[in-house]
């Protein structure tokens, strides 16, 4: 099974169970910036009353749900990880949190055509806001590079004031202005 097959299988399962979702992480960064290899696919999901085991069953037996649920500290949400039994590719599901920006980007998510179907992804502005936030907390150069990539590829198309408004709330405004000038 290819990584693309794995992602398609998860999208199929989410749609079959009517679970609202969006594809985040590297997949959404690649859509707006310069594509790079990714070892996992991250989804934000609004599970509602659907148990995670029902989703696991819909995705298929060859995907192993790791029993240890973990937590993502920036938006204070929980994370479930699936591993395909014959692949090194990972699928990570983040439950939609109560974090104001997590909610806002989910409400603003958009669709994109990936061939035979459409998928939900965040807007370019929301990708930047999240990357800046992760960069502030984790100090990862990868996040800074991703922001620069999106700023350069999407130059002239971004709602910069929207990004600034969230950066002010997250304490990332100075970094954003520096990267905007550099881009």
């Amino acid at each position, binding site marked *: 099974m290819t990584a693309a097959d794995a992602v398609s299988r998860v999208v199929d399962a989410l749609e079959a169970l009517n679970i609202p979702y969006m594809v985040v992480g590297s997949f959404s960064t690649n859509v707006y910036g310069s594509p*790079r290899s990714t070892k996992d696919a991250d989804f934000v999901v609004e599970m509602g009353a659907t148990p995670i085991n029902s989703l696991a069953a819909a995705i298929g037996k060859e995907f192993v749900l790791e029993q240890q649920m973990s937590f993502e500290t920036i938006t204070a949400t929980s994370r479930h990880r699936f591993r395909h039994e014959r692949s090194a590719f990972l699928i990570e599901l983040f439950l939609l949190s109560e974090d104001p920006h997590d909610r806002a980007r989910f409400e603003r998510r958009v669709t994109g055509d990936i061939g035979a179907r459409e998928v939900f992804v965040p807007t370019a502005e929301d990708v930047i806001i999240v990357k800046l936030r992760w960069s502030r907390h984790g100090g990862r150069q990868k996040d800074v590079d991703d922001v620069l990539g999106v700023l350069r590829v999407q130059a002239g198309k971004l709602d910069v004031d929207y990004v600034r408004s969230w950066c002010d709330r997250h304490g990332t405004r100075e970094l954003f202005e520096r990267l905007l000038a550099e881009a």
Partner: protein
Amino acid sequence: MEPTKQLIEELGREEIERAQRMTFAQKFWAGAELFDYACAISSAAIRRQHPDYDDAQVLAELRRRVEIAGRSQ
């Protein structure tokens, strides 16, 4: 030969222009395709290095290498 600042900037501009020309679908799937390609090359290298490994051992070693690469990013 050291790359000049001009060459680096030119390569950067080309990368941006290439990304701007790609469709949503091409960009969405690009990361997964690059990953599969890298895994195929790594798996072949592992098999050459460890001809005695069965499929499960190759996959375990591949996962270990992917994990290490992820930590160094």
